[in-house]
């Protein structure tokens, strides 16, 4: 078993964050432990993709814009599109779009990255991963709760 990292997420904190969701009730003791591991893998993946953007732009420092770009072109990170909406694009150069790597639907990912405003909607529809639909449902629910 690889013990790659010395630092660990606080498991109790993860459980508290989970329970911010009103729908989430009881949580088995092992559950936040698994989520912690998944989170670790997710973080590494996001960092890897962001670093790729940094390098493509010829930089040595990962800026928020690099992370935003990584998110926009990676299917697995569709659920983060709203989170990075207001993030400024990184200043330097054409960040290369990655067709392979973690993109599940390569064609859609390439289209979304290279496409201008026109093709964006089409690309979005094709690339709508289940995660995006979940986010949309949550948003509607929160909006309804706020209105109430």
């Amino acid at each position, binding site marked *: 078993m690889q013990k790659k990292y010395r630092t660990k997420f606080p498991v109790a904190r993860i459980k508290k964050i989970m329970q911010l969701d009103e729908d989430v009730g009881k949580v088995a003791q092992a559950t936040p432990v698994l989520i912690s591991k*998944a989170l670790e893998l997710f973080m590494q993946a996001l960092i890897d993709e962001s670093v790729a953007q940094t390098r493509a732009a010829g930089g040595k420092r990962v800026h*928020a814009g690099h992370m935003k770009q990584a998110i926009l072109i990676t299917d697995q990170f569709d659920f983060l599109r709203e989170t990075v909406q207001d993030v400024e694009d990184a200043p330097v150069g054409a960040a290369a779009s990655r067709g392979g790597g973690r993109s599940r639907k390569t064609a859609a990912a390439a289209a979304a990255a290279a496409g201008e405003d026109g093709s964006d909607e089409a690309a979005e529809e094709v690339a709508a991963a289940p995660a995006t639909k*979940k986010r949309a449902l949550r948003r509607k629910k929160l909006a309804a709760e706020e209105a109430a």
Partner: protein
Amino acid sequence: MSSSDLAGGIDEDLSLPKATVTKLVNEMLPDDISCAKETRDLLIDCCVEFIHLVSSEANEVCEKDSRKTIGPEHVITALQRLGFEDYIAEVRDSWDEHKESQKEREKRGKRMEKTGMTDEEMARAQEEMFAQARLRMQQSSQPNQ
């Protein structure tokens, strides 16, 4: 720690500790690359979103399973449904490790039971050891020999 944490209220600003995330980021970055502070903050937001994403999905899996408690299998199914199948193998490994450490803890507990001391006796014994250690520290910081 926020004050609402201590009061037992719900803190909507609940997030992951910056220091922990910073340490992890530094372990994960290649040696020649650094990370801007604003990027780390964005990363924290993404992590919290990820937790919500997986929790929400796992909760639905749990409900369909007619269970009241979200368990590890629900998390694994959730990861699959969300397109993170490539995480599942390692997540299962961490579950196995956790089960092992729980067994170890139980064994240790049973060993403690064997000493024949009650919880109060053990607490008293511990206090004595602390007191002795404190004494030793005081003596060593006053080398007036």
